[in-house]
């Protein structure tokens, strides 16, 4: 049986798709056969981040509707042969998703894969609800700003009440916090919420802090998950996240930021 991970946030633009691509790649790189599904029907993005947009023939909705088999729709990643992508349909909308259809696809994938990563769309509507419904674990992606924290909190409420595990009274979904686009300098200046501020509201197990990094955008534009950029801080941070998720004990990095040369020279801004 595969472990189903949902990457969710409520708010848009916080880094769900970047995170989905990175952790799916990270898990596959660690030797686990992984599928990543784009639930953002109508706003397909994951294929761009993973650089497979030109190989999309069939999509998630085709499989749900029985117009294509799962094997026809799954795209094998060019960088890692243990990673497969199930792209969203760009010409349909979220109404094309059904709980029954999603359940069937996930069941079939579960036979063959170790991890299934569900890239949730923003919002709390059908697409987001179906992405989390079958989940075993949830990666709650949050930016260090108050509206993102509030939306994540709302999402946590939905995770604990509207999932299959909640409906069946099973062990609840395991929830993890991923703090993305974290800028330690701006935290110091009081322009951004600190990790403690966020944790005071969400109190979740922290899987990692992903520092704000230019490499994320350039990796996205190049169609390469940022985790493959081992020199970048964001890439290293995602690698840590995957390792921690798989049970490794690693100290948290990137909380305090790095000391710049000028900063050391002049003793920092006030």
């Amino acid at each position, binding site marked *: 049986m595969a472990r189903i991970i949902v990457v969710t946030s409520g708010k848009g633009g916080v880094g769900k798709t970047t995170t989905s691509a990175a952790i799916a790649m990270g898990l596959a790189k660690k030797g686990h056969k992984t599928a990543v599904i784009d639930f953002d029907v109508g706003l397909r993005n994951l294929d761009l981040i993973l650089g497979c947009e030109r190989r999309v023939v069939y999509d998630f909705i085709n499989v749900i509707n029985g117009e294509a088999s799962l094997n026809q729709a799954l795209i094998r990643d060019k960088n890692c042969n243990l990673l497969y992508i199930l792209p969203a349909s760009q010409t349909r909308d979220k109404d094309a998703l059904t709980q029954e259809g999603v359940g069937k696809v996930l069941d079939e994938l579960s036979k063959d894969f170790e991890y299934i990563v569900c890239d949730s769309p923003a919002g709390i509507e059908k697409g987001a609800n179906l992405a989390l419904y079958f989940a075993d674990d949830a990666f709650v992606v949050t930016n260090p700003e108050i509206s993102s924290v509030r*939306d994540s*909190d*709302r999402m946590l*409420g939905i995770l604990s009440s509207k999932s299959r595990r909640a409906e069946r009274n099973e062990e609840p979904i395991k929830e993890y916090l991923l703090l993305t686009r974290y800028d330690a300098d701006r935290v110091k200046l009081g322009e951004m919420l600190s990790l403690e501020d966020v944790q005071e509201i969400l109190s979740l197990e922290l899987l990692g802090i992903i520092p704000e990094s230019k490499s994320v955008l350039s990796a996205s534009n190049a169609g390469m998950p940022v985790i493959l950029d081992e020199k970048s801080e964001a890439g290293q941070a995602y690698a840590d996240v995957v390792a921690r998720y798989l049970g490794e004990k690693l100290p948290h990095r990137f909380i305090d930021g790095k000391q710049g040369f000028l900063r050391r020279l002049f003793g920092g801004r006030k």
Partner: protein
Amino acid sequence: MLNTTPALEFKSSTFFAPILILYTNDLAAIEQTLHEKINLAPEFFKDSPLIIDLRELNKQNQDLDFTQIIQLLRRVSFFPVGIRGGNESQNKQARALFIPIDTVREQGSSIIIGESQKQEAAQQPAAQPETVTIKEPSIRPVPIPPVAATATLVTQPIRSGQRIYAAGDLIILSQVSAGAEIMAEGNIHVYNTLRGRALAGVHGNTAARIFCFDLQAELISIAGDYKTSEDLNKQTYNHPVQIYLQNHALIIKEIA
């Protein structure tokens, strides 16, 4: 300039009104007992809306002149707004007096709960609405047995957007997030940070209290008297407090 404001709109809302259960058709006895009850709390009953429940009376096959009872109730400053459990002729009379007829529903079904359907509160019967009973003067009034509304215990965090309703007391061990709403007919205890809205005594129990370890609430209310976070005193903000009503004023007091 064009006026785009609509002339009206419909909204759905819930109101609470006392129910008058009649056990006799003796108008003199009813009037006497009503006066006694009103004298106990004149302000409470003055101009109060009222729903007349005739089920008991009709069970005993006692007929009642509905028009007369309405006149009597209006005389002692009630506003009858509904009838339930009436027979055909009583309903007909009610209709003629423009009093709405309520079909009798099963009690104990008013569970209000947001997304947390699995909360223990869902298993609780809802408390009965405020009732006024009129008995034969010769028979000693039997008080309505209080509904056994036990406390509801919640151990997981109440997240933004979730609503919890408890028919009795509500005890919460985790935090209550901003944007969450917790309501109880009795007291509310939050053994953690309270950031959302907390409404105690929602059925009008002015003796209900709110207790919390760390007050950061958006809104607190007891029996309808409320304060928003803007009105909260800085001295008690972020402190463990109890909140209660005194002469229609919300008192927020630090628990040492």
